[in-house]
């Protein structure tokens, strides 16, 4: 899957999960940058990504992520 497609889908997911169409997903985006992105919202986010991309992550995999860029790389590694 191309990076462009991954970010396009991530944009949709962020808009849906946080109910905010103004969010722009960039590789450097972190929880500090988005209101309401607490640990529980993070769980919702991970679940939404799993559903949209048809993937399953282990706790360790998502526990290590520092920003959206790392998340996108993880998705690309797992999604054909």
């Amino acid at each position, binding site marked *: 899957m191309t990076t462009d497609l991954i970010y396009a889908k991530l944009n949709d997911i962020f808009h*849906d*999960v946080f*109910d905010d169409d103004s969010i722009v997903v960039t590789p450097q985006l972190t929880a500090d940058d988005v209101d309401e992105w607490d*640990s*529980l919202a993070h*769980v*919702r986010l991970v*679940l*939404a990504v799993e*559903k949209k991309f048809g993937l*399953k*992550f*282990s*706790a360790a995999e*998502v*526990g290590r992520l520092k920003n959206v860029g790392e998340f996108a790389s993880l998705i690309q590694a797992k999604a054909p």
Partner: protein
Amino acid sequence: MSNDLFSRLAWLPAAPDDFAQQCRRLLDEPAELGKRAQRLAGHALDENHLHKLAKALNKARDAGHSLAPLTPFRLGVISNSTSHFIVPALVASAARHGIALECIEADFDQVVQAALAPDSPINQARCDAVLVAIDHRGLPLTPTPGDAPATERTVQAALAHLDMIRNGLRAHSNAVCILQTLPPPVESTFGSFDAVLPGTPRHLVDAVNRGIALSVAGTEDQLLDVAHLAATVGLAHWHDATLWNMAKLPFASAFLPLYADHVCRLVAALRGKSRKCLILDLDNTVWGGVIGDDGLEGIVIGQGDATGEAHLQVQRTALALRDRGVVLAVSSKNIDEIARQPFRKHPEMLLREDHIAVFQANWNDKATNIKAIAEELSLGLDSMVFLDDNPVERGLVRQMLPQVAVPELPDDPALYARTLLAAGYFEAIAFSGEDRQRAEFYQDNARRVTLQKQAGDVDAYLVSLNMQMTLQPFDDTGRARIAQLINKSNQFNLTTRRYTEAEVAAAQHDPDAFTLQVRLADAFGDNGMISVIICRRERNDWDIDTWLMSCRVLGRKVEVAVLQELLTQARARGVRRLVGRYLPTEKNKLVEDHYAKLGFTLLVRQADGGSSWELEVDGAPIANLPIAVHRSGFASPIEMAAPATA
């Protein structure tokens, strides 16, 4: 897939694409907020939809808007697991069941403290009910395989723990407790032997679950059978180890909407909102086939036939519901006498006229009929459930009477019974002598109610169907189906003339014949060929030899559109008059007034009930129709052979 039925709440219609906007609009226009929220919640919503709707509802409450007519209910939630995601799911799902839910959530894993401390936020809030959402990890269930006495002590200790929680809540806040059964873990240590040997985790969970059910019986507290829910969707799907390890989520988030709906059914039942009446369509719902066309010998019920067995299961389900106090009614598009025949005479029918409190079989729209049924039974529309295989009928009733529950049905009738029950419309929290007798109270030999005024704007609904009609003359491709309709149609058939395929081919090639095969598609799909017309030219008249239509598209002005087409084509060919005949049979009384309704003038009325009619082509009015017409395959009039002259 059957599993999708539950996880997707497939009995509910799909959420609209602009769901997020509609949630926001709830606040922009606070009028009738409660009603509109309920309508929005009446769709199949996933976790994100529920989150958005809950947000809108909470904002509305904070802004002081009224949520009437939703009934307020305060629910406490205490859990040994993360309840944070469950709360918005509950608030949004409650609106579906007519409840304006306020949730008070205890802190994570503070079950005992919340229940026993008189000044805990849960107890202070004086909830109407408290959901005690404990799973097997929240009880002291230490395995003691093979040690029966120790096992018994463990089970009793777990039940005592739950009793302590219940007593605390009741003493300090008088709340009803909703106790959950425990979904057994997926893993086993011995294998099947886990179920036999006392003290294994599975054995312990089964014993505790039995104990919980026993302890709730006869009290005001309620049971939420989460163990059964988890088993229904599959324990391996329900239990998600990653989610538990990551965030102490008690079950896979995919089942949040389902779990929330089940909790809200209980809450609604506590407020007396469970539905009380099941209204059944007949053709292709309660039996396979169409009684008016197929006759007693042609409809399929049971008889070892797969479709027949599926419909028989619908009947068994209806009877089981009746036995527990749900009232049965019928709303069918049929002639009354004909619709009652299977109830009276078919050997495989389980439903008899005696089982039906109100029996409405006529040609009027079902919304008007359902309203009449509700008034006759002195029940609100919000007590009604309407089961119909036809998506167009379902759409009409949903639009005209939004308080009536209309489950979506899959294509396969084998799943009708399960889908109806999966929706949980009739959730019960008690079973009294009065319930048992309710059916007899309504027994009045299947009353028939005369209809008053129409329920609403059917024309607007017809426009929303986006009907597309395709008209063609007879051709080789259509011949088999044309012949089938000609030989099968009994009700909407003006002359019931039966032709072989050879005769159909002859009509196709006859220069003095004008033929039409009519197809109809709408928002719900393609109905295929639904009407066949043959006109025979005599000088400047068209004698309408054959006019038949599938009853499935009645009430949609298809015949009016067909008449328009006949007039257009007649004009182009110099035909000046249409002549129609009604030849009465046992089955086609439905179309006795067909030509009268279309504006024809009566020529002759025969002693046997038959009639002849005429319509001048010029000056015939043009109707405004909700149907888009597409033509193909017509020869231009100039190329046609000159008509025969006397």
